[in-house]
Structure formats: structure tokens, C-alpha cells
């Protein structure tokens, strides 16, 4: 199990090599990398700042990994999420999953990303070339992506978990 939050960049090849090292049962590795775009909602992006909640973030990612392992027979999981100052073309997040067959690897990789988007405490702030800063809004479509897996999320929408009733 590898869950890391770090300032530094990561290398997909090195991460996958470590993930499947000495594991002869691995027949499939699926990976996803999220990167910084230069345009967000029509506005140019020159830099992006990523904030997180130290302590809770690691616990949330470990919980997400455990949920994936409970659903599929996985042989390895790596989740790396960067924080700090990033720029277009930079890598933000890596999820890599190893299993015996491709079905579990593909599905678990997508599940982990969908879960992370709505439940891991990270926040993005985008800065445009003229220096204007804006916190990125959560997307209702990300909650819907997690709901496909049978997990309710109210991150972006009216939140049962967040609103006072």
C-alpha cells in the first residue's frame, strides 16, 4: 500500500515498477494521471495552488484504497497527490492499480479517482495571467460519478453531511 501527499513531481515508470516489483501474480496494471490544464471554465490558468488537510488527507486516501480492495481482488495500489504551487503541464495526481486481470485494474483505478474527487480534502485555487485568484468550484458531475458506484456523495450538491438541517 502506498498513499503519498507530496510537493515533488512523480515518475509513472518508477511508480509502476515499484508497484509490481517481485509480484508474480500481477497480470494487469492500470494507471491514471491528472494534469494541470491551461484553461479552466474558459479562463486562462497560469498557476494553480493545491491545499490539503494534513492528517485527514492521508486517512481519507487510505479509506478509499480500502474501499477499492474490498470490491476487487487487487495486488497493489499506489495513490500520489501533489500539493503546493503547480503550473499547466504539471502532473497533479497518480493512481496505479495492479491485479491479476485487467477488469479489476481498470475498474478500481476509475473508482479510486471518482472517490478521491468527492471525498479527499484537497482544494485547488487557480490564478489567471492577470493575477486574479479563484477557488475552483466543486462539480455536481463528480458527485454523480461516485454515485454510479453506489456511494452517496453530497460534496458539491446540497450536502446532507455539511448543511445544518
Amino acid at each position, binding site marked *: 500500500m502506498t498513499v503519498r501527499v507530496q510537493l515533488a513531481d512523480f515518475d509513472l515508470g518508477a511508480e509502476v515498477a515499484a508497484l509490481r516489483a517481485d509480484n508474480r501474480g500481477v497480470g494487469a496494471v492500470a494507471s491514471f494521471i*491528472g494534469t494541470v490544464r491551461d484553461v479552466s471554465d474558459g479562463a486562462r490558468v497560469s498557476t494553480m495552488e*493545491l*491545499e*490539503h*488537510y494534513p*492528517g*485527514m488527507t492521508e*486517512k*481519507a486516501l487510505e479509506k478509499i484504497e480500502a474501499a477499492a480492495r474490498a470490491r476487487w481482488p487487487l495486488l497493489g495500489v499506489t495513490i500520489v*497527490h501533489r500539493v503546493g504551487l503547480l503550473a499547466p503541464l504539471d502532473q*497533479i*495526481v497518480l493512481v496505479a492499480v495492479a491485479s491479476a486481470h485487467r477488469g479489476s485494474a481498470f475498474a478500481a483505478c476509475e473508482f479510486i*479517482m471518482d472517490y*478521491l*474527487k*468527492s*471525498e*479527499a*480534502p*484537497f*482544494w*485547488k*485555487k487557480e490564478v489567471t495571467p492577470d493575477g486574479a485568484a479563484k*477557488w*475552483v*468550484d*466543486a462539480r455536481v458531475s463528480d458527485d454523480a460519478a461516485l454515485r454510479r458506484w453506489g456511494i452517496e456523495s453530497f*460534496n*458539491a*450538491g*446540497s*450536502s*446532507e*453531511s*455539511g*448543511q*445544518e*438541517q
Partner: protein
Amino acid sequence: MQLELRYFASVREQVGQGAERAEVPADVLTVGDLRAWLRARGGVWAEALAEGRALRMAVDHAVARAETPLADGCEVAFFPPVTGG
């Protein structure tokens, strides 16, 4: 009861601090009570923790709801919807 409070992202910027230790009165028993108590500070607090705002909350690093109970010494966080990945 003494609590460790944490604020993140847009909430942190609005209230002008990321962390504080607060001594709360005996009738503050839940996360929702705490939110209302902080809101009563007025000004930026009333705005940042406004009732209609989609806020997320955590107690000791676990997702919490308005009715989640508080315990002495626990860490309570308020933050906007998450946007990682």
C-alpha cells in the same frame, strides 16, 4: 470544553486564520452547535459559516455532520466542498 479548530481554503481566507484553540460553552454539544456559536461572532464568521452555504465538516479527521457530537480536546474542521484530483 476546549476544541482545536481548523479552517481550510476559502473558509480559511475568509476568517483570516487557519487554526485556533477555542473554549466553548457547555451548551455547544455538536458540530452544528459549534458552527452556530462561531457564526454568532458576526462579520466574516457569519458569512463564512452561513447556514445556506455548502460547507463540509470533520471531527478528528473523519467526515462529520451537524449532529456529530463533540468531545473535549477534539479537532473540528470547516472547509468548502473538496476539489482535488
